[in-house]
């Protein structure tokens, strides 16, 4: 399946781009992260510490355990600092 993957804040800076289309057969967010980490050092740098990251599936906060079934947009970012 093809998923839009979005990056924000320092995750975006480490990856070097705000979004990309990813062709994957990952069943969960964690599996997608593993695939990405295997690609290039910049992904390894961005995903080094999952505790420092949050994930949203189709614009809803989710977990790294969550299945990707039917998901069209995955976003990775650090904890939010609004307000």
């Amino acid at each position, binding site marked *: 399946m093809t998923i839009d993957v979005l990056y*924000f804040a320092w995750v975006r800076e480490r990856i070097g781009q705000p979004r990309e289309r990813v062709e994957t057969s990952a069943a969960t967010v964690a599996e997608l992260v593993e695939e990405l980490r295997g690609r290039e050092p910049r992904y390894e740098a961005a995903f080094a510490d999952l505790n420092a990251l949050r994930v949203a599936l189709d*614009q809803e906060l989710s977990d790294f355990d969550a299945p990707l079934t039917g998901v069209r947009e995955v976003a990775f970012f650090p904890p939010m600092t609004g307000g």
Partner: protein
Amino acid sequence: MATIRVQEAPFDAGAELDAFAAGRTDVGAVVTFNGVVRDDGGALAEMLIEHYPGMTERAIGKIVEEAVRRWSLADCLVIHRYGAMKPGDRIMMVATAAPHRADAFAAAEYLMDYLKSRAPFWKKERSADGESWVAAKDEDEAALDRW
């Protein structure tokens, strides 16, 4: 019964307060919160706020919906800017109107606590020394537990 605006442009806090719940006779209490770019060390040149278009509006919408469900509110307003701001600039504003002050205060604090940690904004500070992302604080996450 609620207004949400996510925008790059500055907003006029005074005009917003004047217009908010204006002329309503069922309102006894109006609370506002304004977030301001604070420069602790005197070295901050700029604050840059990034957000997640689409998710931002959804996330704020859900937070407002929950506030309206929990408290007896007559009206509710959230304005949040993104982009570049200077020290002293107003970043965002929340306003709540209610028959009684306890509801207006509680709802405004609830909105702020959730906007802080659950709305997809990220702040970067730029000073003479360079740039750095503002880290989320444990106390902000902990503040959600009281609700």
